[in-house]
């Protein structure tokens, strides 16, 4: 049994990265993720690992680019405004197919408090070029710890950046975490890493580019050859990596859909509803891209209605509607349902329960 400790969500990210063999952190301070960068500043240099405080989030993401290109596992973290600055870098990392992990501790637009306002930006590829990146949505400090490790594994497996989508509540909350090192299985050799020719097989030159398809390479003689390969990779990820968790969906007439900390609010509301005899279930997407559409489509075909709860103005609901294909009703509880109309406000289980009762 692994050691169990009390950790803040932001610090759990650090311990998770360490367990995954992460070699470098590059970041810039921004509330509410400051504990992440401070953790790495404290824990990495003394272990002989790399820590650089960049001069901006644009700097962080490009340092991440450099670190990832060496084939080492590297990570950065930021919050929403910094995430906006990282979009160009995300596009480049996706084109260059470099694995790395980005932890996004969301905050609500220009507040410093919790929200889920970056859903569309992380799932739809917020930069240029039409890329997608795997998005993991933890709901607890334990999952922040685990998903840091899973993120590195999936990144290496598919040669893609992976986003771990946290937020101010998950990042600041302290919870018990079991420090378990996860083993996901073997990974392909990184025969593309840029470490100097002497380190390469047969001394052959390695080349990494953010303009794959522009300069012809043996793998991609032209632009469409690259696009075809990239599309195939996205299709494979969509087919294999969609993850979700279900609660009491088998007999449910109404299924709640929520991710991140809101999933815990929804779960509480669901439990209270069940106590009242209402047939309510919950689907919690764990990967936001690829989105677990199959389970939602399956339940929609069986006639269940859907209630999406998200702490923004309604972003994930689009993915749910796409999965449902108009078969059943999809309703929304958004950030306007917060108990106070200010940044400290939160969606409470009782608000969700009141809405649930309207369906029965």
């Amino acid at each position, binding site marked *: 049994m692994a050691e169990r400790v009390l950790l803040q969500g932001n610090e759990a990210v650090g311990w998770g990265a360490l367990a995954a063999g992460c070699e470098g952190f590059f970041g810039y301070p921004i509330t509410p993720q400051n504990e992440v960068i401070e953790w790495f500043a404290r824990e990495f240099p003394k272990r002989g690992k790399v820590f650089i405080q960049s001069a901006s989030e644009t*700097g962080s993401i490009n340092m991440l*680019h450099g*670190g990832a290109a060496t084939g080492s596992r*590297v990570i950065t973290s930021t919050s929403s405004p910094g995430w906006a600055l990282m979009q160009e870098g995300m596009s480049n990392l996706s084109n260059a197919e470099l694995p790395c992990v980005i932890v996004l501790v969301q905050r609500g637009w220009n507040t410093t408090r919790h929200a889920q306002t970056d859903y569309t930006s992380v799932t739809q590829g917020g930069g240029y070029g039409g890329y997608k990146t795997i998005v993991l949505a933890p709901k607890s400090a334990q999952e922040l710890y685990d998903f840091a490790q899973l993120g590195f594994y999936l990144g290496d497996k598919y040669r893609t950046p992976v986003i771990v989508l946290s937020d101010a509540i998950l990042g600041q909350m302290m919870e018990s975490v079991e420090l378990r090192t996860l083993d996901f299985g073997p990974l392909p050799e990184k025969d593309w890493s840029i470490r*100097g*020719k002497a380190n390469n097989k047969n001394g052959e030159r390695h080349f990494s580019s953010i303009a794959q398809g522009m300069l012809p390479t043996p793998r991609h003689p032209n632009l469409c050859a690259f696009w075809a390969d990239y599309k195939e990779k996205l299709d494979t990820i969509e087919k294999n990596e969609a993850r979700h968790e279900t609660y009491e969906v088998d007999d449910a007439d109404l299924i709640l859909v929520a991710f991140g900390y809101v999933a815990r609010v929804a779960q509480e509301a669901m439990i209270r509803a069940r106590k009242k005899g209402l047939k309510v279930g919950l689907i919690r997407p764990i990967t936001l891209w690829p989105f677990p559409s199959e389970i939602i489509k399956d339940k929609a075909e069986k006639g269940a209605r859907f209630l999406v709860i998200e702490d923004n103005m309604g972003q994930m609901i689009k993915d749910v509607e796409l999965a449902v294909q108009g078969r059943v009703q999809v309703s929304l509880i958004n950030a306007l349902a917060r108990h106070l109309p200010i940044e400290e406000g939160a969606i409470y289980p009782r608000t969700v329960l009141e809405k649930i009762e309207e369906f029965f």
Partner: protein
Amino acid sequence: MEREWTTGTPRLWRHIPLILPFCPGCQHATAIRALCESIDELDMEGNSVLVVGVGCYTMASVLVDVDSIMVAHGRPCDVASAMKRILGKDSIVITWQGDGDALAIGCEPTIHAAARSEKISTFMINNGNYGTTGGQLAPTSVMGQVTTTTPTGRNQDQGYPIEASEFIGSLKGVAYSARGAFTSPANYKKTKKYMKTALQKQRDGVGFSFVEILSTCPANWHLSPRDSLKRLEEEMIPQFPLGEIKNVDTIE
């Protein structure tokens, strides 16, 4: 009598089946050949990593036979800083940039890499305008210079050119800063010496090293190759004097 090769295409220059995008009289390739020779002569082929930004010189990323990486416009110094720290002191990490790349969009990474005293070498080609995009104003355009975005000549409204080597050289974390040009074989020799010194500073782990290389851009200057060499000597060198600006063996 037998013939023996003496001078020409450097050993580390890769022959690729592409027509190079260099206009007649453009000296980007001269700079890249000087880099190939420098790396070869210092025996750094196996442990060098070339980080290349975006501009006409981006071709350097496929022309030099060392591991290389093409990155975002303006960001080579960020990428190189991370690579050097991860690969360790035995690696040689070189950035290859233009004046816009290093001084305009990439001013932040360049200055901060220098300030952090990253053990990397930055080579910046300065041709006084944005060549790839058709000759617009650059941070290094001289006063009065006509570009497509300063049709009546650069004046106070656009401000003044940045003297990068002096500016970078003024930072404490910098071990070496120099400016060269290829206006004559003698200057070719000197510029190559600057480049080799910069690489040696990195190998010795002293600090950030920087070499600015003045280059012609005949197509966008609307001059013949020969006249552009003349302009380089008469208009650019007075603004950007050649020579070593900083050269220290230790930074305390």
